């Protein structure tokens, strides 16, 4: 479809670039991009792709805007807290560019829907936040022959590349297998510098535009590493693995599999821990009020202790638990807590394995304490 006079005015800085011109801008208008996730990576990428004049963008997300997203997910605003991310993202993109089409998929990408969701798009931008969805996105891209513009982040570091082009490597060529669950913390657990996904998301948007234009040297077969603290960019080679089970010449995978299972995550949630190993925050509060003798251990990190802490606890970060076991009586009553109960469950298990007989995990951690016992404790 030809550009209107309004569009010509809007895209003039593109049109006067010989590498884009009318031909390139028409390619952008005719292109379609599917964005998996409108979070840290998706937010900046979607804003720039909308501004660039991509004709049709699909957004896949099932989440709702939370206050803790706003430190980095700049497509959403304070007024959007509690709204669906899809609606908030669509409004921001249409505010920038009303001449584009936005399609919304309010669902999690799963093996059962991925091929359908990807079907009508030229390029996929992976802005997800977990290993199963990344392996799924890669597989769906390889099987449907669509480039996968990849980015991922952790604390102060990011990675980006383009997978699944015709002759290029795929995600499984780079990382044949995921780490076991729980080994690599997520952004929610490990934290992330707010501007980091901006840098990586914009690298992804840049590569997407270049792929559409056919301009420049795409980030295929090259892994870009970014270290925000050192402010360093490095580049490593990614080879196409001749033995890759999904993109190699002797591929054994020809349809989508269960990627939760592939990543070692059971499809059905694990059985809840026995009630006798957990204790409610309100009960712990009562014990404190009653002057009951027990040891109350906070296994979070020192910088978290500075944000919020419960009176009467002593700090033993999870990583220090094994070497500090000698400080505690194996038969004493001990309550452990963390932010939400995951890390303290690990501490509890380590202590039990070391012969401690009476360790209880405070259910829901300090977040639940704030909800149920003391609302003056800030939640983070």
């Amino acid at each position, binding site marked *: 479809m030809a550009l209107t006079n309004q569009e010509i005015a809007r895209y003039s800085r593109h049109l006067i670039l010989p590498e884009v011109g009318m031909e390139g801008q028409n390619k952008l208008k005719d292109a379609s991009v599917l964005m998996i996730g409108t979070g840290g990576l998706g937010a900046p990428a979607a804003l720039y792709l909308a501004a660039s004049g991509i004709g049709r963008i699909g957004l896949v997300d099932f989440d709702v805007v939370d206050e803790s997203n706003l430190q980095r997910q700049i497509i959403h605003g304070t007024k959007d807290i509690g709204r669906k991310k899809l609606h908030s993202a669509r409004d921001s993109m249409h505010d920038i560019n009303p001449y584009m089409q936005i399609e919304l998929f309010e669902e999690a990408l799963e093996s059962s829907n991925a091929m359908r969701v990807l079907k009508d798009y030229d390029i996929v931008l992976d802005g997800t936040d977990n290993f199963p969805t990344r392996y799924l996105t890669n597989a769906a891209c390889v099987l449907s022959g669509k480039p996968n513009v990849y980015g991922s982040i952790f604390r102060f570091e990011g*990675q980006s590349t383009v997978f699944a082009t015709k002759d290029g490597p795929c995600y499984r060529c780079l990382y044949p297998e995921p780490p076991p669950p729980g080994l690599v913390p997520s952004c929610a657990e490990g934290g992330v510098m707010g501007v980091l996904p901006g840098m990586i998301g914009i690298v992804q948007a840049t590569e997407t535009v270049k792929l559409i234009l056919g301009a420049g040297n795409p980030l295929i077969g090259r892994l870009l590493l970014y270290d925000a603290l050192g402010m360093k960019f490095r580049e490593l080679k990614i080879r196409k693995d001749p033995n890759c089970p999904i993109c190699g010449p002797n591929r054994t995978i020809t349809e989508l599999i269960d990627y939760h299972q592939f990543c070692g995550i059971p499809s059905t949630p694990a059985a809840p821990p026995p009630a006798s190993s957990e204790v409610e925050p309100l009960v712990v509060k009562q014990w404190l009020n009653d002057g009951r003798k027990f040891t109350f251990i906070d296994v979070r990190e020192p910088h978290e202790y500075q944000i919020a802490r419960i009176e009467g606890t002593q700090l033993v970060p999870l990583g220090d638990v094994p070497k500090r076991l000698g400080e505690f009586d194996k038969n004493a009553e001990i309550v452990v807590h963390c932010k939400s109960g995951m890390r303290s469950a690990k501490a509890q298990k380590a202590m039990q394995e070391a012969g401690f007989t009476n360790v209880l995990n405070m259910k829901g951690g300090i977040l639940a304490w704030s909800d149920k016992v003391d609302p003056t404790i800030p939640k983070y």
Partner: protein
Amino acid sequence: MAKILIPTPLRQFAGGNDTVDVTGATVGEALTALTTAHPDLRKNLYNDAGALRSFVNVYLNDEDIRYLSKEATPMGDGDTISIVPSIAGGR
């Protein structure tokens, strides 16, 4: 002397260092020197069978050692070894 770059997720097991200087004739020897100096790194880099974990890639300069001679890849002064683990964050 060669340099090993330690990525953020593993720095806590390497005394907080972002680089560690090592000596060795091969990448495997350099990694052994690293895990000898920082034993907590061992279980993060190797599985119980003693093989490098498949979600941790090791590069000599910009080349994946899987496409060189793996841990037997020879190395020399001034080379840089990068450990690049799989990360998945995005939100």
